[in-house]
């Protein structure tokens, strides 16, 4: 019976502490929530930054190239077989190029047979030139590089006659593209049309691949391809993949340090707030002691109070942090962020530690407090 009474008194005091000191409570809860939302938001963001940036850096285009070693071109069967070496969800672009020399007007140009969708994926930086028509490639159409347009005077909508051997194709210029590189001097048509012109039915001279992966991953894929297809050579475009490695590392460590700074400073800020609220509880402790509470009772009460606050603040903060990380990921990378469950125990741990430490402080005060001195109002 007496035991029951003690328990109900404990809950009564806890309830009292929560409801009678509402403003203070809101402040404490708010502080803990801020700290834990930062912890969960920042760690969620950090956990995803590498894979997100990896994807973004694919804007530099192909990082692997597969060429033929001999004269024989790459067949459709080989192309399909090679594609299987890449994991689908990591393969950003896979574009076979078939080369040919064609006559267009007075000059001879390099014609490239492509599938435009794949081409765009390995060359995301290539855009339409000024007044460039539209960036599409249907049957009976061709795209021309900017310099080709300047040299031949062809503009979007014009009909171009391209010749190779005795074959002639009449194609409509759909657009003028610009890269600043070699593409500006080439013409692009559908692979099937170039096959018609050349009379060959091979599918490619080279294949450009844009794949999300570190240099080592790419290296091992290239090795596998080289081992099983001796007539082909897969090579890493070092310029892209090597630079990517170093940039990625810079970005991740930058974000890591920034996140750490935000993390620590928020926690310290919140801890300072909680500490500052301690001193006003002297009187309360004095009163409880004078009514017969033991040091252990007070210690227990404050720790429970702190844990309860830490628990609620931690959960609220975790939820808020995930919303925050989601919002940041959506606005920076246009893609959702993976909610990581490991952040939940991390966040709870930190919020409980903050709340716990700052509630143990007033409890520790309890040991040294003389009720008479405190209640006399200093």
């Amino acid at each position, binding site marked *: 019976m007496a035991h029951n009474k003690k328990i109900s008194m404990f809950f009564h005091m806890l309830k009292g502490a929560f409801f009678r000191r509402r*403003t*203070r409570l809101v*402040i404490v809860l*708010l*502080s803990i929530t*801020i700290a834990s939302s*930062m912890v969960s938001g920042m760690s969620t963001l950090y956990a995803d930054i590498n894979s997100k940036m990896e994807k*973004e850096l694919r*804007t*530099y*285009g192909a990082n692997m190239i597969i060429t033929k070693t001999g004269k024989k071109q790459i067949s459709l069967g080989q192309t399909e077989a090679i594609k299987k070496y890449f994991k689908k969800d990591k393969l950003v672009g896979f574009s076979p190029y078939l*080369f040919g*020399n064609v006559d267009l007007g007075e000059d001879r140009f*390099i014609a490239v047979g492509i599938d435009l969708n794949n081409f765009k994926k390995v*060359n*995301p*930086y290539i*855009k339409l030139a*000024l007044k460039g028509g539209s960036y599409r490639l249907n049957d009976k159409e061709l795209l021309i590089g900017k*310099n080709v347009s300047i*040299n031949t005077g062809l503009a979007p909508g014009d009909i171009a006659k391209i010749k190779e051997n005795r074959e002639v194709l009449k194609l409509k210029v759909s657009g003028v593209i610009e*890269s*600043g*590189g*070699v593409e*500006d*001097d080439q013409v692009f048509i559908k692979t099937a049309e170039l096959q018609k012109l050349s009379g060959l039915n091979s599918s490619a001279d080279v294949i450009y691949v844009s794949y999300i992966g570190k240099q080592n991953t790419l290296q091992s894929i290239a090795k596998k391809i080289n081992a099983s297809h001796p007539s082909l050579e897969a*090579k*890493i*475009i*070092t*310029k892209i993949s*090597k*630079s990517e490695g*170093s*940039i990625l590392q*810079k*970005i991740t*460590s*930058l974000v890591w*340090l*920034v*996140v750490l*700074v*935000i993390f620590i*400073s*928020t926690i*310290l*800020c*919140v801890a*300072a*707030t909680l*500490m*500052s*609220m301690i*001193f006003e509880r002297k009187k309360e402790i004095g009163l409880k002691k004078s009514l017969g509470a033991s040091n252990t009772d007070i210690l227990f009460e404050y720790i429970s109070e702190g844990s309860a606050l830490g628990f609620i603040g931690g959960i609220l903060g975790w939820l808020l942090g995930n919303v925050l990380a989601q919002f*940041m990921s959506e*606005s*920076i*990378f246009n893609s959702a962020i993976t909610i990581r469950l490991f952040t939940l125990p991390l966040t709870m741990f930190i919020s409980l530690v903050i709340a716990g430490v700052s509630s143990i402080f007033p409890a520790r005060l309890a040991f040294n407090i003389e009720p008479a001195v405190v209640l006399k109002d200093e």
Partner: protein
Amino acid sequence: MFSRILFKSFTINLRRKLMAIISIAMGASLIVVMLNLWLDVGDKLGKELKSYGSNIVVKPKSQALPFDIGTDVDPLEGRSFIDESDLLKIKTIFWANNIVAFAPYLETKVKIDGRDYPVIGTWFNKKLVIPTGETIHTGVKAVKPWWEVKGSWISEQSKKSQGSALIGQNIAKKLNLKPGDSLPLIYKNKNNNLRVSGVVKAGGLEDTKIFVRLDELQKIANLPGKVGWVDVSALTVPENELARKYEKNPDSLSSTQFEKWYCTAFTKSIAFQIEEVIRGSEAKPLKQVADSESFILNKIQFMMTLLAVLAFVSSWLGVWSLMGAGVLERSKEVGLSKAIGASDLAIIALFITEASLVGLIGGLVGYFAGSGLAQLIGYNVFGRAIDIKIAVAPIAVMISVAIALLGNLSIVSTIVRLKPKDILHGA
């Protein structure tokens, strides 16, 4: 009297005031770190992104870049050239300091064992004295930092490098050559005996090419002082509305807009300035590098902005709650002051001054701590100091004072509403 109360408030409640100052300093240092990083990250990352190589190609007007798919044309036939003597002028343009590196190329074909191979004359790591009197080193080594050379690089400065060549790894494999071997090149039936100095592993078209000193190829091909094209690696800023407007139609810019465009380090404006100084040239941004760089930098800068805003909000909330906590306990003091005749205004003035002082001290402490932290991050991530902007100091202090004042705002209404007897009675 006012200053005495103020003084006492700081000395008696020293611990509480210290807490407030520390907490504001935390918030302020966070803001300082983020502001400094935000202002400098574009520059720093831009430099890192230079590892992707050049972003501008300079070539003779309306000339195609050589692209080899195995045809039998002499790459030098019927071509126009850039004068090597003009190249130094690249370092005299408005954005000269943003030019990180550049390398000229001259490409032709030579025969080895009766087969054609492309050979390129270039600068490897050439020492140049630019018109300002400064000495710089530039060449492929700086423009293509991803090259791995087995053997040794060629140095333009030493006499010994005469007759040396770097060869691409594919050629080395095909002809079974290694550093130290001799390399007989035949150009137009004339024999030139070179020596392999190193093998280049570049992972690109360079693997199938031979590289020699520019002056040597000019002599072999009898084209003194001529250059086929130039790669330029420049630090640029991401494109904005103005840059896009220029791109759409250069004539649509007003003269002030043009001036602004000219004086901003966009890839296009740097290219424009290079065209101005090199006769008969056309400088074009290499979209793969220039556009991607712009895209990545914009992303990172945006991310830093969001993080900075977040840091700001979180430190503000943190400090605000601390202030709120402090105020609650001072109601008794306010009640007493009112009871002995202090006007609302006098009490508010006291609180405001106190808050401003706390904000000022906290802001200053935070500024120094934050600058130090930013430096630490700069060294850890980029191996270089972050450019600390003085302008950040007043901003940090102002924000700190504002935070401290805002934290105290809620008291003002409390003070006005307070009735001394309620408080002093001990509610």
